[in-house]
């Protein structure tokens, strides 16, 4: 019950932060850091996969409604939700397999790899669907790389802030 409550609050908060604050940044004219995948990143490791996918879809489609972008956020968020177990195994190795993993006890390097993988895949799917043409390949690469750098930094910083508060 408590997880449901925490995650619904996170859901609303993250969308509001994304829409009202981060989408106004427009660094270099076209780069906005993206924070809302944090919800998927921080989901409990034992969550049922169907629940996780439905949550990811609703999160993504809510972003799409605010941004008028069709279904690109939904597709990108679904992709990372589906691939999450794979990334967890890659980043945390054995401790994930034995289900003894505690997110904040893991070394910084492993957490960083996990967050980077999630953000990179999310942004790649997102921007390839948004741009949707081979003519703009260079633009796509630029946008993905720059946005990923900003988003990864933002999410790592936010993760550290959340931890300090909860201790």
């Amino acid at each position: 019950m408590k997880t449901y409550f925490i995650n619904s609050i996170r859901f609303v908060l993250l969308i509001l932060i994304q829409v009202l604050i981060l989408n106004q940044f427009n660094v270099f004219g076209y780069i906005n850091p993206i924070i809302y995948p944090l919800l998927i990143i921080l989901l409990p490791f034992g969550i049922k996969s169907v629940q996780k996918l439905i949550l990811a879809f609703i999160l993504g489609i809510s972003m799409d409604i605010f941004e008028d972008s069709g279904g690109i956020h939904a597709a990108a968020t679904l992709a990372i939700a589906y691939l999450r177990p794979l990334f967890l195994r890659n980043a945390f190795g054995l401790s994930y397999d034995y289900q003894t993993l505690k997110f904040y006890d893991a070394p910084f390097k492993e957490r960083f790899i996990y967050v980077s993988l999630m953000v990179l895949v999310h942004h790649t799917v997102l921007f390839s669907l948004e741009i949707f043409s081979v003519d703009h390949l260079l633009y796509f690469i630029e946008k993905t790389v720059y946005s990923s750098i900003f988003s990864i930094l933002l999410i790592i910083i936010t993760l550290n802030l959340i931890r300090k508060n909860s201790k």
Partner: protein
Amino acid sequence: MQQIIIFLIKNKTGLVFIILMTIALGLTFKSHTYHNSKLVSSANFISGTVLSSSENVHQYFDLKTQNEVLQKENENLRRKLLNIPSAKDSLPIKLEFIEDSLYKITRSTVISNHYDKIDNFLLIEGGTKDSISKDLGVISSQGIVGIIQDVSPKYSRVISILNTNTSINAKLKKTYHFGTLTWDGKDPNILSLIDVPRSAPVKLGDTITTGGRSLVFPENVPIGIISNFQLDENIGYYSIDVKLFNDMTNLKHIYIIENSRKSEALELLNLDLR
């Protein structure tokens, strides 16, 4: 039968993923064509309320520049008004004409404006309750902004000129040579005018205006000036870079233009098609 059910339960994650992904991709593909699906649109109650309450706060930071923009427009309009010969005598007569005028103009404000993507949209105040409908043109004091694409009771969604799916009829101000105005998705200040015939006298710094060949925009609404051009020798058409008068990254006060004889014209066109 039992085996099918067992199969479904075993693979439910994959199936749910595939179903949801298909929906998401379907919405994406639909959004890349001009006649967009209305399923996912910011012109609805929840997103409209959230975005407009945030805009209520944002607008204070921008008051000074927006005032200047409006004052500049007033200055322009006053200059025109005072320079009409014998404006005083003709004014009452003109006012009568306004009742029956061809173009109805409604003011509105921008709630959310995107220019960071390839296909951009704006959300503006005013919807069906304010008798705003689909396919009306939107301009600012300096130039064109876009075309209304979706309307809810209180909000409307505008497909921006900064959208690779828009194509707007435009012409050289001097000579009536027509072309199509499109955006390549890169610089929010530069549009390109394509399909201008070889015979057109294209010069740097010339003004581009709307062509008046559609029922959306009136003729001679300013768009921008020619900043660069190329003649494609094989096809014999110019492609021209147009620098916008309008700062699409800083829009607040806009006007919605309605051609009051549009339905009549459309009826005629439809009759023709049958």
